[in-house]
């Protein structure tokens, strides 16, 4: 066991709390307790997961694991026994939570209101489930009792029941601080007062329960969860200043301060927790996501069960204080997955290697080295969980129940129930696919989304996510098919589809077309997240750094916390030789996201160019530790050691690493004969790439500028030992042979395409078999064979992990050389001399135009 850093830990969950609301309140002195709290500890933003749905996120916070592992997939789940649906329950959680682990370690462990935590688990302390605060319609009259399963141990049920606050107990004294003119509200027309009463009573029930435990019981750990801020925001954020278009002025005047009041009330409650917990406790305040305010508030919400998530923003809050925690400092790069690993370390317990989060080591004032265990799931003993017969996989149970229905053992559910269960199963599968997509496990997301779309072909969001999944997996054809289908289904999605198609085009290095799509999307959804980032990335690719910076600034206005935005701005400044500005932005980027190899790499480059050599060394070393295969980072650090730091001995390790571990890169121009491969070789050579050629094949009338070929390529399928000669160079390989390239290298392939008719005519002419115009002379079989070769090559190009490629159409190069060169330059990371490339395009050599073009 490691060193115990905390005597006791109090975790206060504020669903949807966001610094964008808190900071202005603190500046006005309206959240004094939280302000004092963060002065005594650390604060930062915490990144959420996708989908940002609270039951899934709070389970991730409590387990350190993503949803495909913990098994909570949305708001509802099927109740296989009754063949109905029910709110998600803790019996469906597949893994141990922090309160289970602490129970096993014999700590006094309490939990109040966590979502989901019903039925209350038999932990080593008190558990008050999330259902305890909820009240169904049948219980609207006082007094009420709820299911004893809400409380563990059940003998405390009456104690807690006496702490429950009913909405009817909320008086004007509670309401007026939220709505100063509450007495003038037309309560027939507006349900504001009723909503506030319900939310306040539920909040007070949770607060009473948690404070009663702290007042009356010994404790090592208490987790208390409030959904109140989230619910206030969903109901009243549209009235929060500045006034949104379309909001009635009178309504705005009545309730524009409700959101602020909700936060202030939480500050008041926090004061009580600080009194009760004492200075020797470690206290963590955390939210699961933020909440859009200002211009990012959606004007409308889609009509689907996950629509509340559209109001949630990417970053929530984390604040932490206690013995051993830094004071008045910011922490960066926290994720909701980090809470459980951090609590384990606070108790000196090992972190599960199967957890997805990390220990927030940068919050401590001494070096903390976390200990690890393979998995807490393998540890036996009493973890305060429900007995195995109570725990089940509700999704599997539905399958089992369906089978029993089919076998005739169980009566079939009613049509309504059947429909409800199907809907809930679809939702959970959708959220599972989103979880896989978030983790970039697209191969696991794909079959789920394909099945959902097959069964629900008209459901926009399923198809939209499938299209994105295809895009990430590089299946552009399927992605475009999905986009086309979506365009016929709902015109409201068009801006998002333009964005998606623009991203596809950008991935294909079709810069101008991509920009057109993004600009089209911008007209309809100017505040669409990531749109300006993509526009900026596009300008960056074509070295228009001023325009890129302008677009990054727009992205910054929407999301000032995006590490990608700061990284983009930093690299722009770097390329503009503004090193101080670059360093500032890149430091911010890696501050927001520590695991960011490209960020550290560019920071190293900026520091080096600015003469900060020691700091540059550190940045490169971090980048290399995060991405050991980055050859350029090794090359920079070798240069640094040899030329600037006077420590050439340190360079040896990196030289050997490159030699032994990093594959070389060969650039290939490929295509069928007479598709413009020689012209492309000339262009790239002029652009600055070194060509591997033996000049055995000399120029002739068919190719007056020369072929730039290498004889050994012809035997590539028999002997590829010469490839080492091509390392770092450009070589021409005819299409059918491209599949014989070995896996020992990375390849950048420019694949030439040309109208098949033109290509065949050109080949025939070259061979002296001039087309006499008769049908019999047209080589149909040959064309079919070539088409098959192109199909095979296409499959190979897309399937090889060591291959990046770009298709270039010969006719496009002739007709719009600037645009094609721009695309090529983007593919080669802007390292080509585009003016010299342009000089190589000679339209007079375009001699075998298709009949279409000759007209």
């Amino acid at each position, binding site marked *: 066991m490691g060193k115990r850093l905390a005597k006791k830990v109090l975790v206060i969950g504020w669903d949807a709390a966001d610094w964008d609301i808190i900071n202005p309140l603190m500046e006005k002195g309206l959240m004094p307790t939280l302000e004092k709290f963060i002065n005594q500890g650390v604060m930062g933003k915490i990144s959420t997961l996708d989908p940002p749905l609270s039951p899934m996120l709070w389970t991730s916070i409590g387990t350190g694991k993503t949803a495909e592992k913990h098994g909570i997939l949305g708001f509802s789940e099927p109740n296989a026994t009754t063949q109905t649906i029910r709110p998600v329950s803790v019996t469906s959680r597949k893994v141990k939570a922090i309160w289970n682990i602490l129970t096993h370690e014999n700590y006094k462990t309490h939990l109040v209101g966590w979502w989901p935590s019903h039925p209350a688990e038999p932990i080593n302390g008190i558990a008050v489930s999330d259902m305890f605060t909820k009240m169904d319609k049948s219980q609207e009259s006082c007094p009420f009792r709820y299911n004893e399963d809400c409380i563990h141990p059940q003998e405390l049920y009456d104690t807690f029941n006496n702490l429950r606050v009913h909405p009817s107990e909320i008086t004007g004294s*509670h309401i007026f601080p939220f709505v100063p003119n509450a007495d003038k509200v037309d309560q027939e027309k507006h349900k504001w007062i009723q909503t506030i009463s319900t939310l306040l009573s539920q909040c007070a029930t949770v607060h*009473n329960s948690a404070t009663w435990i702290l007042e009356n*019981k010994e404790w090592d750990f208490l987790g208390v969860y409030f959904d109140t801020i989230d619910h206030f925001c969903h109901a009243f954020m549209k009235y929060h200043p500045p006034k949104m278009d379309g909001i009635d002025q009178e309504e705005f005047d009545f309730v524009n301060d409700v959101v602020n009041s909700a936060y202030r009330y939480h500050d008041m409650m926090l004061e009580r927790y600080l009194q009760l917990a004492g200075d020797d406790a470690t206290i963590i305040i955390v939210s699961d996501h933020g909440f859009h305010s200002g211009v990012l508030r959606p004007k409308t919400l889609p009509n689907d069960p996950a629509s509340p998530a559209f109001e949630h923003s990417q970053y929530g809050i984390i604040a932490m204080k206690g013995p051993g925690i830094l004071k008045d400092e910011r922490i960066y790069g926290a994720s909701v997955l980090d809470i459980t690993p951090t609590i384990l370390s606070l108790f000196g317990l090992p972190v599960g290697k199967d957890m997805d989060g990390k220990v927030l080591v940068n919050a401590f004032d001494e070096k903390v080295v976390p200990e690890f265990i393979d998995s807490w799931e393998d540890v036996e003993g009493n973890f305060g969980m429900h007995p195995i017969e109570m725990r089940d996989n509700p999704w599997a149970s539905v399958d089992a129940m369906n089978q029993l229905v089919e076998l005739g053992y169980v009566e079939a559910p009613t049509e309504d129930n059947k429909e409800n269960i199907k809907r809930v199963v679809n939702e959970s599968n959708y959220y599972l696919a989103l979880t896989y997509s978030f983790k970039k496990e697209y191969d696991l997301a794909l079959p789920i989304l394909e099945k959902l779309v097959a069964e629900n072909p008209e459901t926009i969001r399923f198809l939209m996510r499938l299209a994105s999944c295809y895009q990430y997996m590089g299946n552009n054809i399927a992605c475009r098919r999905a986009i086309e289908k979506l365009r016929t289904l709902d015109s409201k999605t068009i801006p998002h589809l333009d964005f998606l198609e623009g991203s596809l085009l950008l991935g294909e290095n079709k810069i101008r077309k991509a920009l057109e799509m993004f600009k089209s999307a911008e007209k309809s959804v100017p505040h669409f997240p990531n749109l300006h980032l993509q526009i900026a990335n596009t300008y960056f690719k074509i070295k228009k750094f001023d325009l890129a910076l302008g677009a990054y600034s727009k992205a910054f206005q929407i999301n000032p916390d995006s590490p990608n935005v700061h990284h983009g701005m930093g690299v722009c400044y770097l390329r503009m030789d503004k090193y101080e500005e670059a360093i500032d932005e890149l430091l911010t980027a890696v501050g927001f996201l520590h695991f960011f190899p490209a960020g550290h790499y560019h920071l190293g480059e900026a520091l080096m160019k600015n003469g900060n050599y020691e700091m540059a060394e550190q940045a490169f070393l971090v980048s290399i530790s995060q991405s050991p295969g980055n050859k350029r980072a090794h090359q920079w650090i070798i240069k640094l050691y040899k030329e600037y730091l006077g420590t050439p001995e340190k360079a040896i390790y990196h030289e050997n690493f490159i030699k032994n571990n990093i594959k070389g890169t060969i650039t290939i121009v490929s295509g069928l004969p007479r598709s413009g491969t020689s012209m492309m070789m000339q262009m790239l050579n002029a652009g600055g790439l070194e060509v591997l050629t033996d000049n055995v094949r000399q120029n002739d009338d068919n190719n007056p500028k020369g072929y730039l070929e290498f004889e050994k390529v012809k035997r590539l399928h028999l002997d590829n030992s010469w490839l080492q000669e091509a390392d770092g160079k450009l070589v021409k390989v005819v299409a059918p042979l491209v599949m014989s390239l070995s896996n020992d290298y990375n390849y950048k392939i420019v694949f030439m395409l040309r109208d098949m008719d033109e290509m065949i005519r050109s080949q025939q002419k070259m061979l002296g078999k001039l087309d006499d115009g008769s049908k019999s002379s047209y080589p149909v079989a040959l064309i079919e064979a070539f088409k098959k070769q192109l199909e095979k090559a296409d499959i190979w190009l897309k399937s090889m992990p060591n291959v990046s490629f770009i298709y270039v159409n010969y006719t496009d190069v002739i007709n719009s050389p600037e645009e094609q060169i721009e695309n090529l330059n983007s593919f080669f990371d802007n390292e080509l001399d585009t003016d010299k490339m342009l000089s190589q395009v000679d339209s007079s050599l375009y001699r075998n135009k298709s009949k279409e073009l000759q007209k």
Partner: protein
Amino acid sequence: MSEDKKSEIPKFNIPIEGSLGLLALGAIGYIAWKKKREESKLKESNSTVNTEKDGKAIS
């Protein structure tokens, strides 16, 4: 559960109509407010009984 403890009770005002501050105190505030309301109810009902005895009108 044997590990009960006694925590310090803060001093606070308890208006009969309650207040956000009282609610923010948590269990101790809520219990005290509830008690105050019950006492007030009792007082009210006692005063009603007394006025009935006095033969005055019931408001």
